[in-house]
Every structure is written in structure tokens, then in C-alpha cells.
């Protein structure tokens, strides 16, 4: 795999982990705030406010890394961006408008806390939650298109039949699986943050309630994944090259070429899922009448579960992406020969991840990238330290 793809994988990996946490937080924070307002529970409101700080930071991180990904893509693979931009206005448009509202909801929700009326603040909270789900809707439609280009029209000009694109057999399972995965990881992350605190001090009643609920929701998400994961895997029969690149090593092969073997990554992902399942069962199933949930062992197990969930999201995303390398569209090798000229020539090179733009192949560029990213990640670490751990001067 070339260095350009690895840069993109790095920033995309950070982006996707942060986004997954964000989906869960954007769901739970307005819910907790509403419940706190109904019951007058100040401690619950404070807990929600504390989570919002984490959300703001994860969202900022997701935004920056998402931007970095787009710029890397345009710099390394400009022709692909040109083609994609020409045909994907509607799916991208859904995400663009959602991002617009989501950003506004984040700012308004934070600064309007205690200033807006309850009704207005709740409305902004709903906007925050809903747009957290509509942003990935558009992007996952594009990802499904990158599996197999359903809806692509070449004559009289390259364009997209949006209905056909949304009926892409891989779209719905991919989207639902992503959401379930995000909720599983996100709630385990929340539980993990509380467990981290629990290892150092006694949790309040509100925090204990939130901790337990998060673990239960994570378990539900994991159960949902048991159905949605196989659904997506089955949908991949429409993307036989990708299917083979993942499953051929495990003995399942479709009638299509196999370019690489990512069965090992799939196995790692399954082990990580298993770890989560074991942790959640350990926490929620009483063993010999003892309640491990709020014990030191329980907290440690929760943190392990949260880390495993984060790595599951990461490996799942990398599995989905790498298993079609070096093609931007997984089914490209199957359809390239059937395309008329000049599309055949243009798409064959534009959809190839090894065909890097000639002006972006300077080794000094990569050195600049590595140094820049390292320094700035260190600066971001300092920001996190100051915001979450450093004591006030006053």
C-alpha cells in the first residue's frame, strides 16, 4: 500500500473514531438534559454538561481530520475527486446541509445552556441528535456507491440516478451497521470515561445510573450488530471482489478475481467483537451472586471493552476500505472492460489508488506531513490536558 493511502487511512481512522463517539454523545446528551429538566436533577444536568465538553472536542477533532482527508484526497487523487464531484451532488448535499445544521446546533446548545428557554434548548437538542444521523446517511450512500456504482449513467453525460443509488444493495446494511456500531462504541466510551473516574473516586448516583444504562445500551447495540454485520456481509455478494478479498482466506469465494487477503483483519475484528461480548456479559450477568459492575475489576473490564469497541470500529472501517485496494470503486475491475471510451481510459486510471498525482509524489511533502501531524497531535494533546485535567488558576 502506498504512503498516500496510509496518510489518508491515518486521518480517516481518527476521524471515524471521533465521529462514532459523537453519534452516541449527540444522542445521549439532549436526552439526559431533558430528563434532568423534568426531574430537576442538577447532578444529571452537570453530567450531561460534562459529556458535552467531551463532545465538542471529539467533534472538532472529527471535523479537522475530515477536512484533512478531503484535502489529501484532492491533492493525491484530483481526477477521482473531479469525477465524484460531478455526479454525487445529491448524496453529498444531504450531508452538507446536515453538517451546516449540526455545527449550528453544537454552538447554540453549548452557549444556550441555561440561557435559552427549556423548549428552545430542547429543540436545538433534537436538531443536534437528528443531524448526527443524517450526516452519515449521505456519506454512507457515497460509500455504497464506492462498493458498486449503482445508479451510474454514462450517456449522454456521466450522472447519477439518485433513486437507484439509494437502492444500492449495500447502502442500507452499511448505514444501519455503522449506526449500531457507533452506538455500541459510543456508549461503551461513555461507560469507559465513567469507569476511569470510578477507579479513582466513588461515582455519584447519577453517574452510576448513566454508567449502567450505557453498558446496557452498548449490549443492545452489540446484539443488533450480530444481525446487521452478517446482513452487510451477505450484501457484499454484489461486490464479489471485495467479498473475496475478505472471505477467500476463510474459504468463501465468489466467482470473481481475488486481489488481496484481508481475512486476518476480519478475524482481528471478530476477536475484538468477542472481547466486547465477554466484557458486557461479565458486567451484566451476576456471577455467583456478586455484582461486579461497580467493582474495580468491573471498571477495568469496562475500559477494556471500550478500547475493544474503538478498535472494532477502526478495524471495521479499515477492512471495508483496504479490501477494495487499489480501487476506489470495489467493483471497478469487473466493469472497467465494459465501459465505452473515453470513460474506460479515464475511469481506469482515476479509480486506481496507485495512480497518484505526479506533483504530489515529492518525498519532502511526506516529511512535511509527518512532522506537521506529529507536532499538531502533540499540541492537541496539550489542549485536552488543559481542558480536562489542568486545575483552574483562579
Amino acid at each position, binding site marked *: 500500500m502506498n504512503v498516500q493511502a496510509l496518510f489518508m487511512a491515518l486521518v480517516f481512522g481518527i476521524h471515524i473514531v471521533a465521529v462514532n463517539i459523537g453519534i452516541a454523545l449527540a444522542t445521549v446528551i439532549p436526552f439526559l438534559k431533558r430528563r434532568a429538566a423534568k426531574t430537576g436533577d442538577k447532578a444529571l444536568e452537570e453530567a450531561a454538561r460534562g459529556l458535552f465538553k467531551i463532545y465538542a472536542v471529539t467533534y472538532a477533532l472529527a471535523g479537522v481530520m475530515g477536512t484533512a482527508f478531503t484535502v489529501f484526497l*484532492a491533492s493525491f487523487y484530483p481526477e477521482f475527486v473531479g469525477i465524484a464531484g460531478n455526479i454525487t451532488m445529491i448524496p453529498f448535499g444531504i450531508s452538507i446541509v446536515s453538517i451546516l445544521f449540526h455545527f449550528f446546533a453544537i454552538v447554540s446548545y453549548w452557549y444556550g445552556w441555561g440561557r435559552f428557554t427549556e423548549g428552545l434548548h430542547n429543540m436545538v437538542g433534537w436538531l443536534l441528535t437528528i443531524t448526527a444521523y443524517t450526516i452519515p446517511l449521505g456519506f454512507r450512500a457515497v460509500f455504497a456507491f464506492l462498493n458498486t456504482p449503482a445508479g451510474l449513467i454514462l450517456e449522454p453525460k456521466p*450522472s447519477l440516478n439518485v433513486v437507484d443509488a439509494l437502492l444500492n444493495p449495500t447502502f442500507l446494511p452499511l448505514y444501519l451497521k455503522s449506526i449500531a456500531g457507533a452506538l455500541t462504541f459510543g456508549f461503551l466510551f461513555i461507560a469507559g470515561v465513567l469507569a476511569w473516574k470510578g477507579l479513582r473516586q466513588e461515582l455519584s448516583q447519577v453517574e452510576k445510573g448513566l454508567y449502567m444504562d450505557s453498558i446496557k445500551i452498548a449490549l443492545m447495540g452489540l446484539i443488533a450488530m450480530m444481525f446487521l454485520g452478517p446482513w452487510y456481509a451477505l450484501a457484499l455478494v454484489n461486490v464479489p471482489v471485495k467479498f473475496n478479498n475478505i472471505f477467500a482466506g476463510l474459504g468463501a469465494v465468489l466467482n470473481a478475481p481475488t486481489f488481496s487477503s484481508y481475512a486476518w483483519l476480519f478475524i482481528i475484528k471478530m476477536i475484538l467483537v468477542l472481547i466486547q461480548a465477554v466484557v458486557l456479559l461479565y458486567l451484566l450477568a451476576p456471577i455467583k451472586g456478586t455484582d461486579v459492575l461497580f467493582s474495580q475489576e468491573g471498571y477495568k473490564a469496562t475500559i477494556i471493552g471500550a478500547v475493544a469497541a474503538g478498535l472494532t470500529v477502526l478495524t471495521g472501517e479499515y477492512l471495508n476500505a483496504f479490501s477494495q485496494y487499489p480501487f476506489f470503486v470495489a467493483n471497478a475491475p469487473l466493469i472497467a472492460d465494459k465501459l465505452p471510451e473515453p470513460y474506460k*481510459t479515464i475511469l481506469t486510471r482515476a479509480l486506481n489508488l496507485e495512480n497518484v498525482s505526479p506533483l504530489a509524489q515529492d518525498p519532502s511533502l511526506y516529511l512535511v506531513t509527518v512532522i506537521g501531524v506529529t507536532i499538531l497531535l502533540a499540541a492537541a494533546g496539550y489542549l485536552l490536558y488543559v481542558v480536562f485535567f489542568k486545575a483552574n488558576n483562579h
Partner: protein
Amino acid sequence: MNLLEQYLSYPAAPERILSIIGIELHWFLLQYTLGLPFAILVLLILYKKTGNQNWLKLARTATKALGINFALGAASGTLSEFGLVVVWPNVLEAAGRYIYYPLYLEIFAFLIEIVFIYLLVFGWNKLSTNAKIIVAFLAMFGAWFSAAMIVSVNSYMVAPTGIVSAYNPQTGWTYSQGYPKVLLVVPSDLVGALDVAKLQSLGMEVVGQMGNGVAVYMPSKIVARLAYEAWSMKTVGDSVLALVVKPEALPAVKGLLVKDVVDKILVETVRTVGYTTVTFQSPVYLGSILHTIGAALTVTGFTFAGAFALLVLLTKKKTAYYMDGLKFGVYFSLVAIVLQGAVFGHIMGMEIARFNPEKLAAMEGTSNQILSIPRTFGIEGLMKLIIYGTPNGQLPGYDQIPVDYCSLMGVPNIPDCRPPLILHYLYYVKTGLSILLALLSIVVAILIWRKKELGNIWLWSLAASPAVAQLVSFLGWGVREMGRKPWTIYGVMTVDVARTANPVDPLTYTVVGLLFIAVLALQVYAAWRLLFVPSLRGEEE
């Protein structure tokens, strides 16, 4: 002449209008992203020097404003970026392939901004004064670094490196000699296939060997046609290139995509000029970046002055805090607007005169088809003096610009290649309002300096000044962008080539545009509720 009709007659009108809304929304917000960190830095240094708590309080309020503004600015920036991807994908593809480097570096600038702006916002109570000063400086560095990168790309679009315009103030227009022309480096392996004599008859000038090819000045009308053919996926055999390829070489190359031929030339050109510096060598870069920063500082200064003038008016109190805030805003805006008008604006104007003469002709309204403001007021000599340093210089005549100078044999199909004449009025409204703002800041600064009472007329004028300053800045960017039409990259790519092959219906564009405007309105409302209302109540802000 119907000026609006002329402006709408260029291709891609709905896309252009949507982009004006989206980019101007971003522009509105980034005035503060660029201006506030500098103001905060100055305030913190003032606090450090004098110990006056009001400067610290003011810096804190400005930091809160910066936090809100940056979040929405980042959102609108993200939207502009995606807008480029889906509305103008072909220009983004060209930018990504040939001038990506500043965009690439801008990622790091964005990271610097986000880390240090939010360190200042969330870490305010956890940082010492010295640490705050350092963080404010780094936040400013990130924001200005980001602007320096983006403006370099925009400058390249206004006047690409190697452009030679079609105007000489002594001799007039030079379209008959094939100008404007663009410097290109044609790779040696391509040179052999081209009929140089034919190209020279079309206006091409050979400069000589450069890098791994031959440098030439290529007429823009040929470049524009090749750009059109490249993004229309034409082959050499179906292209104007077939006319300038040697007959014996044609069979071998006629199946090649024009895009590939153009790509070879542009890659070689950028490689020869330097891929890391090509946009910074744009002849309008210096003026553009100075003028951008100057605009941001001016708007920020008047926003301080206006906010505190309004507080004085609405509370009917002249507390030390309010008066310090007012004083800071007035002095800040005075320095900013003088620099902006007398230095930065002048540099920008001279660059435009030299490298975008068609735009200058439209800005100065040198057409008999409209009521020209300089002609009406008899200040044409003054304008020549300002622009050329001599009243004897000759302003470019708009009516003498050929309507087809951007196309070759009708391709691309642009009915009128001249920039829109509406520019004249936009430019003069902008200039007139700038002069009024400058006079206001001078008069109020003198009154404050002489410790005179500020009457309500001055306070209300100051209260209106942020909106006027934003309007001036809005019009300034509008003149810059609209004045480039029908080009997207001046002398290289026309707007019809840049836009998506699959535009959506105007209704969808309208809805998206209205959403952008709604967000801008909400931003103003949020600033009012969260920053201004607490101050009215006498709270900390």
C-alpha cells in the same frame, strides 16, 4: 444596458449566486477569525503593561466571541469546501492537481487555529497572562497562516503566475497581438509534434528552453479552448489541437485525450515554476493577502467600537469599561482603515490595473453604456493619478474590449467575455462607504483624544459602523470575484468549464442558499443574545 441581465448572462448563474452566498457567509465570519486573535493579543499586552482590568475583561469577551465565531466559520468553510467539490468539481480537480500545495498546508494551519483558539477559549482560567499572550499569538498565527494559503490559491485564480495582460497604459489594448497570454512550459516530447509556425500565427510567442521543455506565451483564448476540450473529454483528433499538430504526427496522437496533453503541459509548467511556490508567485498575491488581513482588522475594529457605542446608548451609562472598549475600538479601526485604504488597497489597485485591466475598466466604468461616476464628477484625472501615478495615463476603455476575447472560434460558448459592468457601482459604493468610515474614525478619534463628550450622533454612527464595515468588505470580495467573470481562472478556465456537469434545479439551489442565510441570521442573533445582552444586564461580558 441592463446590468443585472449582463451579470446573469454568463454561464452557471444559479451556481454563481449560490457560491456568492456561501462564500460571502464564510467571508463574513472569517473577518472576525482573522481580526479577533490580533485584537485579543493587543488587549492582553495592554493588560500586561498597564494592569487595567478592563483590557483583560475585554479580551475575555472577545475570546468568547472568537469561540462562537470560529465554530461557525469552520462550518461555513467546510460547506464551501464541499460546495467546491459538488458545484465546481472541475476547478477543484485542476486545483488539486496543479496548485494543491497551499491547500495541503492549510490543513496544518486549520489544526493550529483549532488547537490554540480553543485553548484560549476553554483554558482561559487555567493559563497565566504570559501563556495567554503566547496562545493568542499562536491562534493569530494559525488564522493568518490559513488566510495566506487560501488567498494564494484565490490570487492564482485572479491572476495566474505567468499571465501577461492585454493592456498597456501608454498604447492601449493589445488583443490584436493575441493577449492576454499565459506562460506555459511545453514538454520537449510534445514540442516535436506541434507546428510551431501555425501556433505563432495564432499569437503564441516562444520564450526559449526552460526546465524539461520550451517556454511559450500562449494566448488565453487558446488555453481557454483547450481547457474546455479537456473537460469535455475530447480527443486530439476532435480538438483544435488537430490544426496545430504536424500532419505526419497526427495519426499517432489523434486518439489521445486533450486532457492528457493539457495535463502534460501544466504539470511541466508547475514543476518548472515550483509546485510549492507557484501560487505565491501570482502577481496579485501581495496586495491580496494584505488587503484581506486589512479588511478583517478594519471590520473587527469597527465591531468593537460599534458594540460599545451601542452599549453606551442603550444603558445610558458611560462606565470606564464601556469607554475603554469604545476607545480601543475607535483607535484600532482608525489605524486599520488608514492602512487598508492608503497602503494595502493601493497595492491591490495597482496590481489589478496591471494584471486585470478588463476588471479595472469595469470597476472604473469606462463605458459609454452606463453613467460613469468619475466622468460625472470629473475625477477621471484623479483616478489615473492614483492608479498610474500620473494623470496622463490612459484608463482602459471597456467598450473596446472584444466580446469574444476569451474564446477561440466560438469555443467555449461565452456570449460576452467582458466583466460585468455592475462592478462599477459596487466598487464605487464600497469606496464611498470606506471613505465615510475613515472620516468617522478620524473625527471620533480626535474627539476622544481631546477628551470631548461624544454626542449621540457619533455614537449612533459608530453603532452602525460594524454593519457598514461588513458591507464594504462584502462588496470588496464581491468585486474581486464577480470581476473575474466569465473566467474562473483568469486567462485559463472559463466558468462553464469549472462547474458541475449535473447542476440541480434552481429551486434546490434557492433552498440551500436560504439555509445559508438563515445560519448567518442565527449567528448574528446568537452574538446578540450571548455576548451583548449579558453586557446590557451588567453581567461580566
